[in-house]
C-alpha cells in the first residue's frame, strides 16, 4: 500500500557517449598480469550486419570463487581472493565496432531454487539508437555440462542458445553481439 515514486525513464547515451562514459581503466575487470586473466573481445553489429562504432559494453560478474563483494550476497560480502578484482568492466566500441575486457572466469553460482548457474557475465549494451540498455549474458565454451544444466541457458530455444556462448579465440574468447536480424543475440528483460 505504500506509495511508490515514479521511475525516471531511460534515454539513449547518444553519439557523444565517449565524453562521459569512457574510463582509461574501464576494460580492466582485473589488472594486467593477473593470473588466469583473459581478454574477452567482440564486435557489436546492427540489423544490417554493420559494426556499431558508438556503443558501450559493460560487464558484471562474480569472482572465480563465485562470490560478490556486495551486501546483498546473502553468503556474505567478502573481498575477492583476486587482488583488485572489480567485477565490472566497461569498454566503448571502436570504429570497427570492437570492444574488449580483461577478466578472469567467474565461478558457478548457487541458485535460490537449489540449482546451479553456469559461470557467466551479465552484459549491458548502451548505444546511440538504443533508448534503453539491452542486457545479455555470456557463457563459457569450456563448461558444456554446467551450461546444459543452467536454468537460463537451458530454457532458451535450441537455435538461439549459441548466441550466448563465447567462442575461443587465441588466448581469450570472442563474443559478438548482434542487436538485430540474423543470429540476433538473446536479450533479456531483467
Amino acid at each position, binding site marked *: 500500500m505504500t506509495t511508490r515514486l515514479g521511475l*525516471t525513464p531511460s534515454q539513449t547515451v547518444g553519439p557523444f557517449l565517449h565524453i562521459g562514459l569512457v574510463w582509461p581503466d574501464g576494460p580492466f575487470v582485473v589488472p594486467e598480469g593477473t593470473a588466469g586473466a583473459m581478454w574477452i573481445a567482440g564486435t557489436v553489429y546492427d540489423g544490417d550486419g554493420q559494426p556499431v562504432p558508438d556503443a558501450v559494453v559493460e560487464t558484471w560478474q562474480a569472482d572465480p570463487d563465485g562470490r560478490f563483494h556486495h551486501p546483498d550476497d546473502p553468503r556474505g560480502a567478502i573481498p575477492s581472493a583476486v587482488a583488485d578484482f572489480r567485477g565490472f568492466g566497461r569498454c566503448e566500441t571502436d570504429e570497427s565496432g570492437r570492444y574488449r575486457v580483461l577478466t578472469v572466469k567467474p565461478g558457478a553460482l548457487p541458485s535460490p531454487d537449489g540449482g546451479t548457474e553456469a559461470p557467466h557475465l551479465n552484459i549491458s549494451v548502451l548505444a546511440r539508437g538504443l*533508448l534503453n540498455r539491452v542486457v545479455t549474458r555470456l557463457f563459457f565454451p569450456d563448461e558444456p555440462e554446467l551450461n546444459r544444466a543452467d536454468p537460463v541457458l537451458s530454457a532458451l530455444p535450441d537455435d538461439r542458445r549459441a548466441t550466448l556462448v563465447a567462442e575461443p579465440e587465441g588466448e581469450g574468447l570472442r563474443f559478438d553481439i548482434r*542487436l538485430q536480424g540474423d543470429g540476433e543475440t538473446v536479450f533479456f528483460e531483467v
Partner: protein
Amino acid sequence: MTETTNHLLLPRYPLVEGVHPPLDSPGYRSTALRHPVQPLVLLPQRLTEVTGPLLGEERVGELDHDLTRQHEGEPQGQRIIVHGQVLEEDGRPVRNTLVEVWQANAAGRYRHAIDNWPAPLDPDFTGVGRCLTDDRGRYRFVTVRPGAYPWRNHDNAWRPAHIHFSLFGRAFTQRLVTQMYFPGDPLFFQDPIFNSVPDERARQRMIASYDHDATEAEWALGFRFDIVLRGPRASVFEEEDDE
C-alpha cells in the same frame, strides 16, 4: 519446488511497465536497425542481478563535480547548480553511488571528434562531471547551462538542451542512463528522443525544476533533478509463491 535448501534470500526488483521508451521508436531513426526484433526473454533475478558494482571515491577526482573549474579560465555561459537526490521507488535514498554526467557547452557543441556543427568550442569547458551521492542520496554539480543543437534526424531537427546522467545504484537491475531537460524548453514538441517516453507524467520526470532555494545570489541559478531507480521489495519467496 519452492523449498529453499540453501537459504539464499535475495531482494527482488519488480518490473515497472510503461515508463521506459520502446526500443523500436520509429521517430528516432537510429533505433530502426538497432532494436532487437525478437522478444526479450525474462531473466529471473538471482545473485548476478541483485548485486552490482559499488564504485566509490576512487572514481571521482577533486574537481569532477565542478565543470566550471576544470580549466585555466571559466567557461562561457550561464552558470548553474544542478542538484537532487537519487532515490528508490519507496523514497529510500541511494547512498554513495556514482553519478556521471556529460553535456554540450553553452553554444550546444560537444567536445567530441564527430561533433562539427558551426558552433564554437570553449577551451575552458570539457563537459564531464562525476560525483558520489552523500548519505541522503544527494548529489550536486556546478556547470553551465548547455545549448540546444541541431541533428539530422528529421527536417530542422534540434535537441532540447539536456545533460546526460549515468547511474549505477547498487544492483545490476538498477543501472540507468537518462537525460535531464530544462523546464519550459520550446523544443520538446519536435524531439523524438524526449517523446519516446510514452507516458506524459513519466516524461515530466525527466525535466528539472527551477529551484530558487538552490540559487546562489550574485552567482548561479539552481535546478533540482531527482532521479528514481527501481527499488527492491524485501522478500523474494513470499511474492513468488503468490503468483
